[in-house]
């Protein structure tokens, strides 16, 4: 509940009168103002504390959005343990109280990977074959949640989001695209999908209320290519080819304050798309923001406004 997505989901749930009580936890305080939600600051790696908190809350539904993308809010070493331990703790606490009838977990289309045997635009029937540590971490979350559903009979839905971006959302993709020079593949210009954090939050609430079961892809409308995304922000694409050049580009980007994790490099070199038609129809998601609109918004993030001494105007 501390991140952009979790706090927005909490706000949307607060607006619904049929929801009696909302409780959440995260290792950072909520980024938005919450009115009637209870929040407790717990690092997901504090497994017993988190499990006890969930068990004490006796929830009937769980939104587990505690998936930590490397170099977003967590470093690459802490992201995977936070994700897996947090999932085990949250679902373990739910097992103890045995009151949960539905669960929505956050996953991502990184689970599909971009190998030559994978479909270009996978739908939910495609077999996941993640090609990055983050993709494997997401798939583990899905498996833990599926095991929980099989054991308790709860309806479990894994929402596989396209990269969630928005102006203030910490994301390695958004950060990289804001660099003045952006490394891109010289050999291809693959397409990728994104989803705006607001659309993602609405999808979580819709999935929770609809009681969806199984995985669902949640992608924004349309797609953009990597070169196009760079030019939309007026940045300069820097064509890169070959593993040595990419390794160099990763180091330079790291020094520039925008590390490139493996799943982001995969996106830049092979693209990342998925078919979100099923979720769109079942959950009545309405009009979602177009990829280019979302990317343009990322670039419109206001630059630093210097504070000036007040001037006499009269």
């Amino acid at each position, binding site marked *: 509940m501390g991140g952009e997505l979790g706090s927005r989901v909490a706000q949307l749930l607060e607006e619904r009168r049929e929801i009696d009580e909302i409780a959440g936890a995260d290792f950072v305080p909520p980024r938005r103002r919450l009115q009637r939600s209870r929040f407790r600051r717990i690092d997901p790696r504090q497994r017993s504390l988190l499990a006890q908190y969930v068990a004490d809350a006796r929830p009937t539904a769980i939104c587990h959005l505690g998936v930590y993308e490397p170099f977003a809010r967590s470093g690459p070493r802490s992201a995977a343990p936070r994700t897996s331990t947090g999932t085990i703790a949250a679902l373990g606490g739910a097992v103890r109280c045995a009151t949960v009838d539905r669960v929505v977990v956050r996953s991502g289309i990184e689970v599909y990977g971009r190998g030559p045997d994978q479909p*270009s*635009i996978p*739908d939910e029937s495609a077999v996941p074959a993640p090609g990055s540590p983050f993709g494997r971490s997401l798939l583990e979350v899905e498996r833990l949640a599926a095991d929980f559903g099989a054991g308790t009979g709860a309806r479990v839905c894994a929402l596989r989001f396209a990269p969630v971006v928005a102006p203030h959302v910490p994301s390695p993709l958004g950060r990289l695209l804001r660099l003045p020079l952006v490394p891109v593949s010289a050999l*291809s210009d693959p397409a990728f999908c994104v989803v705006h954090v607001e659309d993602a939050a609405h999808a979580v609430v819709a999935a929770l209320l609809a009681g969806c079961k199984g995985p669902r892809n949640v992608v924004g409308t*349309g*797609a953009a290519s990597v070169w196009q995304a760079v030019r*939309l922000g007026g940045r300069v694409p820097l064509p890169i080819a070959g593993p040595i050049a990419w390794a160099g580009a990763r180091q330079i980007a790291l020094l520039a304050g925008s590390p490139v994790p493996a799943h982001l490099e995969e996106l830049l070199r092979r693209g990342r798309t998925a078919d979100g038609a099923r979720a769109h129809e079942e959950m009545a998601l309405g009009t979602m923001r177009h990829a*280019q609109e979302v990317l343009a918004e990322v670039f419109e993030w206001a630059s630093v406004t210097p504070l000036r001494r007040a001037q006499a105007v009269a």
Partner: protein
Amino acid sequence: VNSPRAAASFGIDLDRVGRLENLRDGLRRRLAGRYPVDAFGADPAFQDLVLGPLAPLLSVEVTGPVPPAGPAVIVADEGPARLAGPALVLAIRRAHRRRVRVCGYPDVVLLADVCRRFGFVRHRADDLASVLRAGHLAVVLRRDDDEVDARMLTPAVEHLVLPAVVRFGIVHARPGISVVVGEPLPGWAPGDPLAAPDLVAALRARLAALRVEQVDGAPVVSLPGR
């Protein structure tokens, strides 16, 4: 890929060819990144920029029922020079103002990316299924005269399937492309496990008949004004 017109933006439709803009505006739009791209990597603004000036150089004749909108599959022979795919892209664009999605492109660096920009997708059943779900007109090319992969055509059984013969020669007294599209094959009930093999058998017969009708192997000669 939420709707057939999901990426229709910047005034350019992903499925239909609209009014062509001038080269200067097109290049300016490209430099600013303001052009639509779909999830397959198709780039209609790029297609218009390249194929727009190229299309009038070739004479094109397309006969038969090509649907003006909605998902459908055209099945044709790839031919020895493997030019049927690009020929169908050009011919249907010119005659019916639709952008087709050809299944299959050479897996060669750079060339594959260019093909994707022109609307080519991989020769895979799941990619064909995605194309049809998005409401596009797909083209599946037979690599061997006697063989159409039933697994490849499984997603097509619930859609309009049209056999076609592509020929090169003199059309309207100019070098060109002639495409004869046959009548649509009968539809099969959803979930019928034998639908794809039946479709393959029907296609084989229909394509053979179409080839005989068009005098197999002879160059197209069509008089001006026909």
